[in-house]
């Protein structure tokens, strides 16, 4: 990888159940209070809703908001925060050359329409004809635009004017990881100067809970830290928007951008999730950065989702690495495609403040080393998505 360029994170946009912006999230993480959660609306499932959001702040036109479903509004909002944080919002010259990679799922459904059709269908003999008729009359044309995965990116183009290029990756946590991996690689290789990358998730809805319940992984019952959710574990879906602005050092310096951190090449790989596979993949990925780590000033931000045995496997591997560990999923819930970008954003907060936040649960080990300047961010998805990246403080004059 010689001759590759340095890649900076020059903007972070984050919205979670803890609030909007890195500072709001950081101050909650510092206090270590249990996060807001809702175990009633979708009982017995536990989810992390957003606090009230004034979407007008990032999506000024009501007509635009009406064309989006919640996952898109959350994403467009977080993307706007990231662009503002990077100092490129409202600057057409820069936005015109800004590339975009979004990790998305889509497929938001009209629960009322689905329920009415399923209920009505029970009495029908000619089910095919009934379904056709009801779909033609009950589906809102605009809903389709909320179901297309690439329409989060499309809405970001429309609302914020990011038009360099636009790609959307699909496939749960791995999509969120690979979006960052490829964005970083393109900049490092000179294929892009400036890229907006991230994702959004709207987990407080029946249709996605249904998908997770098919695998039996949605958290039921009482709230507990991700490390301590019993033998099966469980995923507490959250509402989350997380975007990063990645930029070549040259480009960032030329425009006087602030580096929130530098990001190494992202190591991601696929395994078949046989016993030992998660550890082996993470160990191999750790090998790509181990020799760059200054142990006196480094820590791990874990992306463990709370599902077993994956979370225990990650815990075992992190013990082997031996750095202090903090997990974010306990506090912000699980945002699937958005989780990795969110954790990279929070890693920027850690190096900015030079310390870790409050531990939560048995897997959050070690005390904060002084003046943390390196954070290893992990991902272990709900079925795939084993990855690891290094975020480091940029020291002026030395970088």
């Amino acid at each position, binding site marked *: 990888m010689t001759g590759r360029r340095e890649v900076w994170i020059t903007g972070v946009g984050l919205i979670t159940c803890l609030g909007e912006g890195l500072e709001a999230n950081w101050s909650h993480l510092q206090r270590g209070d249990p996060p807001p959660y809702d175990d009633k609306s979708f009982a017995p499932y536990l989810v992390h809703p957003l606090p009230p959001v004034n979407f007008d702040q990032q999506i000024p036109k009501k007509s635009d908001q009406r064309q989006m479903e919640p996952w898109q509004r959350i994403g467009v909002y977080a993307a706007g925060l990231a662009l503002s944080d990077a100092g490129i919002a409202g600057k057409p010259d820069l936005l015109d050359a800004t590339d*975009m990679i979004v990790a*998305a*799922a889509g*497929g938001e459904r009209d*629960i009322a329409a*689905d*329920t009415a059709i*399923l209920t009505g269908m*029970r009495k029908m003999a*000619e*089910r*095919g004809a009934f*379904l*056709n*008729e009801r*779909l*033609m009359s009950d*589906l*809102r*044309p605009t809903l*389709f*635009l909320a*179901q*297309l*995965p*690439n329409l989060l*990116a*499309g809405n970001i*183009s*429309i609302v914020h*004017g*990011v*038009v360099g*290029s*636009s*790609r959307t990756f*699909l*496939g*749960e946590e*791995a*999509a969120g990881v*690979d979006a960052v991996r*490829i964005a970083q690689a*393109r900049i490092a*290789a000179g*294929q892009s100067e400036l890229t907006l990358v991230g994702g959004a998730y709207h987990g407080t809805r*029946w*249709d996605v*809970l*249904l*998908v997770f*319940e*098919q695998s039996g992984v949605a958290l039921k019952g009482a709230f507990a830290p991700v490390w301590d959710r019993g033998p099966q574990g469980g995923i507490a879906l959250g509402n989350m928007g997380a975007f990063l602005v990645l930029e070549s050092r040259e480009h960032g310096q030329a425009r006087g951008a602030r580096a929130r951190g530098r990001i190494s090449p992202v190591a991601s*790989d*696929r395994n*078949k999730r046989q016993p030992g596979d998660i550890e082996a993949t993470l160990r191999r990925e750790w090998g790509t950065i181990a020799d760059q780590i200054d142990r006196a000033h480094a820590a791990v931000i874990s992306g463990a989702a709370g599902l077993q045995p994956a979370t225990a496997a990650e815990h075992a591997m992190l013990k082997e690495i031996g750095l202090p560990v903090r997990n974010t999923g306990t506090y912000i819930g699980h945002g699937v495609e958005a989780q990795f970008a969110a954790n990279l954003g929070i890693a920027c907060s850690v190096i900015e403040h030079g310390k870790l936040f409050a531990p939560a649960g048995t897997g959050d080990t070690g005390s904060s080393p002084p003046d943390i300047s390196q954070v290893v961010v992990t991902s272990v998805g709900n*079925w*795939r*998505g084993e*990855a690891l990246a290094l975020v480091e403080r940029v020291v002026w004059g030395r970088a």
Partner: protein
Amino acid sequence: MAAPMRDKQGRPIVAVTGIGVVTSLGVGKSDNWAKLTGGVSGIRRISRFPTEGLRTTIAGTVNDVYRDQMSPAELSERVALLAGEEAVAESGIGAKGRFPGPLYLAPPPLEIEWSDRIKMAEMAASDADTGYPDLMRVAREFAARHGAFKFGIIGEHLAEHFGTAGSPVSLNTACASGASAIQLGIEAIRRGDCQAALAIGADASLTPESLVRFSLLSALSTQNDPPERASKPFSKNRDGFVLAEGAAALVLEDLDHARARGARVLGILEGYGEKSDSFHRTRSSPDGKPIIASLRNALADAGVGPQDIDYINAHGTSTPENDKMEHLGVSTVFGERMRGIPISSNKSMIGHTLTAAGAVEAAFTLMTLQHQRVPPTINHSIPDPTITLDVVPNVARNAKLRRAMSNSFGFGGQNLCLVMALEPA
């Protein structure tokens, strides 16, 4: 050892050494090419589900591959696998189950289907309204029988089957997806991250709801009778696209790597150009600027000019909007030169294969160069007088071709254009 081959910008050159295709015309390159150049349509009446009450009752389905009760995920995976196997076999790269590079896949955006929801509702057998909480009660039992739903599942299965390297990337750029998969492969090889990549676009997701969704946006042709006449790109009486299924796979390879192992080079992917449109969710900016920019970016990336393009494989969907805007785009970029460039739409015969289209049409563009023969735009009996293009009406034509362009445009402001050429001497 010879110095490594580089393009005009000093980057590794990306060759294509294997191609596989499945469409409504058939399975495999030779069947597809014979029918495509014979002006045969693959559009037919939908037989997979009742069409009572639907405005559009035709589609370009992959009936040669479909078996009873296959879900869109299963059928899409099947056509992707067939196309991938043809491409990998032709390329002769790697060993069985060990493809030496990453997978870039454009799958349809999958979700739980109505057939699944109905089965779950039956399983739940509730007395009152049947809602999502009822489906939740039986979700696990259902998944145990039918498998759980995941967005990345087709990519996972294909990565396992072909033994591709690393984390498989699944992507969606709406109707440009197949071209984006190819683009990601080009970029990875140019970066030197790998020496080969498998790019696949696949979409076999025809369901009542997918049809209704496009229908409610007035995007589909409703001229159902006769089905094979419905798709008529660039015609005055065009009234929408015909939803279709298909897949294509390309083995992309660093030219040096291909030559070193004595592989047959089917063509070169010289460049790509993209530009997003912020005008509207489903419509292009009326001035055509993003389309124009994507075409110009592609020429610049390939290091060629308008005079160097001998053929254009149009996006040509047969919607009033697309064909008008594509005409504006190519006439602006190519100017007077456009009179001498044949531009045809494969969609006149195979319909719009959605997320597969960019890959299917890149495959056909490479075959057009190889065979020095241009497939026609069929159903061109009433030309649109405002579209002054040589659309190769109705009948295929031999031509001397060195380099071609393939356009892909999609909802969400996606514009992506690929430039392909024959192997350099």
